[in-house]
């Protein structure tokens, strides 16, 4: 098990955004996390990546307790993440953005540059390497977000809605990228709203609703689960 989440709770004021969620992620697995808006998916990512402290529960990475550790330490241990609302370093070039990620494992500037170029090739953003990050299209900004996280050389990558806001053409371009990351030996946990995509990519799916896990299983198991269907009723989401 690369990631073990055990009875994790996060309260804001009196409201539990995440309420006793537990699940495990195996090495080189692709796990999808779905749930209606406001279900607590992003909060869960923030807890795993150390951006927010948990109220209770424990999170283990490769058997090591990482609960409530600082975000930068968790990244150094090998968990990378992207942000749902992209956070590029706006005033510097795409290459420099990715290079900053690369410095997580690499000390020398030239080697970091080379590795950043390699990552940019991989996410097909190399043609924009000298562009200022804030000038990118939203699709390219999402790619940059992935590239930055990837450059830190994580073992586990948390992808938070990297396809939200993209058009169908752009989505179909980015799916193979995610598939190729898995082939490289990365473990992936993906939050995604677009069902078609997550069903296609994930081996296993965790469904969260009102901060609680209501189902877990293969894509087909989950979609036929009555609880899941109930949770999604009223939300206009189509199961493709």
């Amino acid at each position, binding site marked *: 098990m690369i990631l073990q989440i055990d009875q994790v709770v996060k309260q804001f004021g009196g409201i539990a955004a995440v309420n006793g969620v537990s699940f495990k992620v195996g090495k080189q697995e692709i796990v999808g996390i779905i749930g209606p808006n406001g279900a607590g998916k992003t909060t869960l990512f923030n807890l795993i*990546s150390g*951006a927010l402290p948990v109220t209770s529960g424990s999170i283990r990475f490769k058997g090591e307790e990482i609960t409530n550790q*600082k*975000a*930068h*330490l968790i*990244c*150094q241990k090998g968990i*990378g*993440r992207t*942000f749902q609302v992209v*956070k*590029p*370093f*706006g*005033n*510097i*070039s795409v290459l*420099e953005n990715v*290079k*900053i*990620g690369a*410095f*997580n494992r*690499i*000390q020398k*500037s030239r*080697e*970091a*540059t*080379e*590795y950043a*170029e*390699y990552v940019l*090739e*991989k996410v097909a953003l*190399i*043609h*924009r390497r*000298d*562009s*200022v990050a804030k000038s990118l299209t939203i699709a390219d900004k999402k790619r940059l977000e992935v590239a*930055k*996280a990837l450059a*830190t*050389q994580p073992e586990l990558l948390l992808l938070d809605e990297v396809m939200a806001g993209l058009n169908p053409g752009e989505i179909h371009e980015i799916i193979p990228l995610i598939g190729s990351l898995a082939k*490289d030996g990365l473990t992936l946990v993906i939050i995604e709203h677009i069902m078609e995509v997550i069903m296609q990519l994930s081996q296993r799916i965790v469904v969260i609703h009102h901060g609680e896990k209501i189902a877990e299983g293969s894509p087909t198991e989950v979609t036929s689960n009555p609880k899941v269907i109930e949770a999604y009723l009223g939300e206009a989401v189509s199961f493709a």
Partner: protein
Amino acid sequence: MKRAVTKSTLLWLLVLLIALLIPVVVENKFYMHTLILILFYAAVSGSWNILAGYAGQLSLGHAIFFGLGAYTSTLLFMNGGVSPWIGMCAALALCMLVGACIGYPCFRLKGPFFTLATLAFSEVIRLVASFWKELTNGAVGLNIPFQAGFSNLMFRGKEPYYYIALGVLCLVIAVTYWIDRSKMGAYLIAIRENEEAADALGIPITRYKLYAVLISSGLAGITGVFYAQYILFIEPEAMFNVNFSVQVALISIIGGMGTVAGPVLGAVLMIPLNELLRSAFSGLNGLNFFLYGIVLILVVSFIPNGILPTLRGWLSKKRANRHSQLTQAIPGTQKGGGQVDSAN
């Protein structure tokens, strides 16, 4: 990429060569004084640039370290006969210590509130320096007795001061250049641009901010020692002056914050203008600062990144356009394709 590095190194060396030769040609005392001021302001502003331009911590308390440096070496010299050269080392150490003590609690504050806190620290230190008469001689200030000699860091002519100021500036530039090219610079810029994203990429934010303030305040302390030895008179009102901090900031802002050459360019443009205005309109007190203010508003409103990055951005846009045209024209010829795989 490599060629660009050598090109800029060559340019720096050329500028240095010219700077070394200037005193051979220039005899006029007023010009020499102006040149020394350019070097001095470029150095102070360069030290501010490390904390503000790279790490994005907009301090208006930089005068604290400048003043502290000046008082450290001066008091050591006047009370203990310690050579200002040694005083310079003491100033460096003390300023780093004070910088860390002020920086550490203030780094929690963001944007204008960090700025306000540094401003308040600066005022507290000025008031304490004026009040602590036993140590600083209060608002009256300290006259440093003139005893020419290398070990006293005092000279009759202007040339030695010129070369020392040049040396200090070279030190500041070298340090900035090193930061700019290294992991440190990349991390400081990441912190400036977005702390949350920087955190997620494994950057220990507080530690890197501390590095920045240590370097920045230490270098500012050295410039303070130089100033005291050049002017031979220091007083709290002049040394811990918020307007001085603003002026130092302005120079970097105009030239370009977060670049190595920005502060130098800013000083080269603003200091002669300042001196010129002051001598041309000596009857009209305040005209130079009046224009300073207007320039500051115009620069931040219209070219907020400063002159150098604006020029550079314009150039790289042209290059990026050309590059994307090239790769579009010849598909599959994108250079540098995946031959490096350091993942394994």
